[in-house]
């Protein structure tokens, strides 16, 4: 059997995208993708599902297949061995395709940003994904080592425009 895409860019217009993005605000299904992280962020992701933080109150649900997902929770510095799998998984996510890059590793490569075995974070491959025709509709970066549960919730809120982001490039002169 071959992979068939029922819809593609022609049928999935910007209007559809707009509508889908609106609807995602009320129901966000997330898929957790570990690309070689230390597990710190991963357990914090599980933690936001549990009673103290309980993100189900925003309509967020963790799903087991990328085909069901709206948002990919990406952790880890993207090791070379996980790269092909990462591309596969991202391709399987139907559009609109959102990515929440969680933790210092996914944002800036953390302590391994210059290791021979990693690619040093999601920003380094985003252009290549474009080249491959995998369009990422929106990315939000959540720093933290590990990103604490509140920071992840805050990231989701920024992604859905519920809150205006606080971080801005700052340049101070002495």
């Amino acid at each position, binding site marked *: 059997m071959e992979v068939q895409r029922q819809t593609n860019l022609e049928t999935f217009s910007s209007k559809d995208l707009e509508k889908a993005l609106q609807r995602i605000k009320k129901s966000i299904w997330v898929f957790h993708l570990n690309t070689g992280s230390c*597990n710190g962020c991963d357990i914090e992701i*599980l933690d936001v599902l*549990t009673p103290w933080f309980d993100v189900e109150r925003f309509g967020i649900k963790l799903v087991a297949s990328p085909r069901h997902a709206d948002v990919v929770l990406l952790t880890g510095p993207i090791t070379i061995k996980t790269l*092909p799998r990462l591309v596969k998984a991202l391709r399987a996510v139907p559009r609109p395709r959102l990515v929440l890059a969680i933790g210092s590793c996914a944002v800036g490569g953390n302590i391994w940003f210059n290791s021979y075995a990693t690619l040093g974070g999601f920003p380094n491959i985003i252009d290549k994904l474009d080249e491959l025709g995998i369009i990422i509709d929106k990315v939000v970066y959540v720093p933290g080592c590990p990103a604490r549960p509140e920071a992840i919730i805050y990231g989701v809120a920024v992604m859905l425009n519920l809150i205006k982001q606080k971080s801005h490039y700052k340049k101070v002169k002495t």
Partner: protein
Amino acid sequence: MESLSTSSEFENLYSYLKRFSDRLVEEEDNLRIVVESEKLREVAEVLSKTEGVFLRTIAASDERSVNGFYKMYYVFGIDKIHRNIVIEVPVDSSDPVVPSITDIVKAADWYEKEAHDLMGIKFSGRTLYKFVLPDDWPDNVYPLRKDYTVQDLVKLYRPEIVTKAKEVEAEAAIIIPIGPYHPALHEPEYFELYVRGEKVVDARYVGFMVHRGIEKLAESMKYDQVPFLAERICGICGFVHSCSYCQAVEKALKIPIPERAEYIRSIVLEIERIHSHLLWLGVAFHLLGYDTGFMHIWRIREQVMILAELLTGSRKTYGLNIIGGVRRDIDRDKAKKCLQVLDNIEKEFKNFVDAAINVPQIKSRLRRTGLLPKSEATSLSLVGPTVRGSGIPRDIRKDYPYAAYKYIDFKPVVRSECDNMARTEVRIYEIFQSIELVKNFLDRIPEGDIAVDSWEPEPYKFGIGAVEAPRGEVIHIVITGRYSPYRWRARAPTYQNLPAIPIMLRDIELADAPITIASIDPCFSCTDRALIIDISSNNVKSVPLNILSLKSSKLFR
């Protein structure tokens, strides 16, 4: 304490070793002996036949700049008398070949593979292929050799993202891209399970997804930066790694650390164990479909996380250790708060786990599944709750006392049923034991400094640091350098325990595979700093069904 030369039980072993090589040094807790590579197999055979001797770790080191050859360090431990036997084998630099000892010491398998990949050591008697590194890694480039710096390696090899992705496209038509991501294993690792109907007939680990090149990175970092790197080996039990790194350096350089710092380390280690075991238990319930249990266990665990943040400044990856002590003190308020929280957890946990463990499905699926016989556990030198669930009381806190465990008496929790339930119970009772230990430590903690003022590095000293992590023994070997460690070898418990999985999986139901894999509490980010498994497939005719399982310590996700 007895030393090897004075122990009556191991007298014969000592005189044998002494006859073997005149280059034999007895240190405070190690017996170091230089053995020529031709004689290695003979020594290994004797050691493996001696009862009570376990293989702890093997490290390869590039010492060409110091003495002109590579060196292999084989660390065997005798739990009973708290001593290590370190066998040092110099390896010729022009033709680095060592005889393989895997057929004698089963547990050596992965270490040899890793040394082959990362250091370019060849093992006579077996053929090895690339395991740890990507398939298209250039030949004859061995990252851990001193010929390359981290920057060189990055220049030498960068993956072609676009080409790689296109290859993936070609093969991906049938198997859907859930790749190594599976809901039970929250890490990108995978096992191939060969199943017939619903029965698992064989399993193969295909991993090394999380190899991040940590040991090489450390060589470019300063002594005081490495604890932070070590801590990021694993986000669940990171503190044990920074702790054993610091202990290894402290041992190598003979830095005496203040008693108060030892107590603080032990307290945080136990708190980490509580959090890690609770996490495991929650995930185990989730794997058995009991989500209510998962939620409640994690609710109880959250208090530990808040406590950890209060004591150390971070919920995970505490950043507390530096060489010579710790960075933060536990003052009286914090100690009081700590006791309160622990009391509360103990009460809530006791109540809840009593109900949860009685859920019919949990009981019936944990009992008599994932059997790991005692004999297999011994021959693989397994560690942690995995081996304690099979009736062997190995516990580094007791066998090689470190930090404040020297000052306190306790008994390791042991169960002898050998099944998943036994391992679960070991963890449950260890939570209570840890709470007890923290209370004890807080009670006895002496006043004083929390870190030494200063210390001087001295090159080419050898030190071993071992800590009982929630998953088993973590052991770090450090050979010191001038500004940063010359060679740092970290070995995580999962590394030692993973070879047990195929044994436990054989002939069980597919449905029980995730919980069985989880029952060793695998932590692949620890393990994969470097490693891989290869289980030679047996002759069972099998229907290969690539079940990509794995994700977590959360398990198969």
